[in-house]
């Protein structure tokens, strides 16, 4: 029997270990080998960023491809986008799961992106990818957006509903997030530059992980960066502040693949990936996240179960 509902701190503690594993390159894991008939061609290396949702998504695509007979290698927990995205360009990875808005911002060197329309962001992203030999395949309706989150008590006590309301916060608003949050426009940097808040202070924690959740709960920070599909928000009654200045771009989930791989395998590969992408929803993602983050299930097991339920593993 799997032990349910371990304390957040145990998770926090374990995530420290995971962080180090991250720094070392992470582990490689695959589904069951030899399930499919075997398709001739190059190995497809799937890489994932170091948080639960991206690991689940990487496993979903990776396992489905493996089951369909492609030679797949899944490398989990590599690190953040700053580390993972260049690996795709360098050819060390072939497939990663991205979020349209943040990926576009990253491709443009962290500058602000004016557009807010989903399709326009997607098109702009593919334009940026074109000369790098990368392709963003069909995007999902599922979105996972960076959010400014406070506890219910903080929201009520200081009358916080929108991010702009932070301007009226008495004293310094301590905002926690992963180390990269500080320099990202979609995160802390955006609070200062887009919202023009001058009473905010950054506190480096982990990337929307257990340490961040615990710091928010214990009042060590006043607000924190979490993702909208994160189970911790509902589980702890946190309040997501409204992004009234549209700091956030649309963040549709989108698999990004090296064009070489698409050329090598053709339409069969693309249509399988697109089918999976179309089946993903924001709600199902939140549920999958809860299974990993709260129920402590393994991302690969959660992914396999989802693939089974959605008919991708039948034969």
């Amino acid at each position, binding site marked *: 029997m799997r032990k349910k509902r371990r304390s957040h701190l145990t998770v926090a503690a374990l995530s420290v270990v995971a962080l180090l594993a991250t720094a070392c390159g992470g582990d490689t894991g695959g589904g069951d080998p030899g399930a499919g008939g075997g398709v001739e061609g190059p190995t497809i290396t799937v890489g994932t960023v170091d948080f639960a949702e991206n690991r689940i998504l990487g496993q979903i695509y990776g396992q489905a491809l493996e089951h369909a007979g492609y030679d797949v290698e899944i490398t989990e927990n590599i690190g953040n986008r700053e580390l993972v995205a260049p690996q795709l360009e360098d050819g060390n990875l072939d497939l990663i799961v991205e979020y349209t808005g943040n990926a576009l911002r990253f491709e443009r060197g962290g500058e602000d992106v004016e557009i807010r329309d989903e399709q326009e962001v997607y098109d702009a992203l593919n334009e940026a990818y074109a000369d790098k030999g990368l392709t963003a395949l069909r995007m999902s309706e599922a979105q996972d957006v960076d959010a400014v989150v406070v506890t219910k008590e903080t929201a009520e006590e200081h009358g916080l509903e929108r991010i702009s309301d932070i301007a009226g916060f008495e004293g310094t608003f301590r905002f926690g997030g992963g180390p990269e949050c500080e320099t990202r426009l979609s995160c802390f940097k955006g609070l200062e530059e887009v919202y023009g808040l001058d009473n905010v202070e950054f506190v480096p924690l982990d990337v929307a992980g257990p340490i961040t959740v615990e710091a928010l709960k*214990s009042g060590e920070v006043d607000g924190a960066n979490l993702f909208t599909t994160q189970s911790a928000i509902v589980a702890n009654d946190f309040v997501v502040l409204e992004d009234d200045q549209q700091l956030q771009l649309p963040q549709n989930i989108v698999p990004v693949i090296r064009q070489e791989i698409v050329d090598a395998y053709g339409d069969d590969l693309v249509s399988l990936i697109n089918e999976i992408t179309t089946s993903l929803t924001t709600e199902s993602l939140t549920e999958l996240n809860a299974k990993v983050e709260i129920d402590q299930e393994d991302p690969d097991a959660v992914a396999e179960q989802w693939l089974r339920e959605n008919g991708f593993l039948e034969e």
Partner: protein
Amino acid sequence: MVAPGGRLMDAIVETFRWLTDAASWTGPRGVLARSLEHLWISLVPLASAMAVAIPAGVLAGHHRRGQAVGAAISNLGRAVPSLALLVFGLLLSVRVLGLGFSFWPIVFTLFFLALQPLFTNSYTAVREADPALLEAARGQGLSERDVLLAVELPVASPVILTAVRITAVQVVATAPLGALAAGGGLGRFIIDGFGQKDDGQMLGGVVLVAVFALLVEFAITRLERRVVPGPLQGRTDAAAVVATGRAN
């Protein structure tokens, strides 16, 4: 692939640039403030571990018992990987004692890490005191207390101080781990630089930690020369081999 040589040069240039930028040094999160934090998160656990482990080791060495128990307890801190100790420190600080993230988790970690070399060396140093010397002291009618304070301790002092020096360097060099658990100190630059893909900051942090450790080593070496009785100087490093042994 970019030529690795080019990247390395870039990284060195970036590091130099970061280290020479005045903005890196000032402010509540600059090098100066972080160095002070680093000193603090190293000094508190080192001083507490010294207060516990040295008297315990000296007494155990004098009475020649309790060694097994003491070694078993203090060895735990060394046999367990530092990262696991940090996990333990984190749970102890936040969950059990409610002391929060930024300071105590790493302090607990370093405290447990420092116990073993201090205890083992204090014990060994006192126990290995020349038996002829002790016999002479007792023959002159010195009380057990005087034997301990006037003979055994001075004779043991070079080894104990060497253990303090080696432990201090280890504590200072391990303190950056705390940044993994939202802690402060110079490790912050390494973790933040890594996350922000800022090579200059990350490698600058590495350089600073190394320099900090060397300064600590230097300072304690100077102290040793002042504290250790003249005739006993020089036998220090040879006798303190135990200090460097891990989980021995």
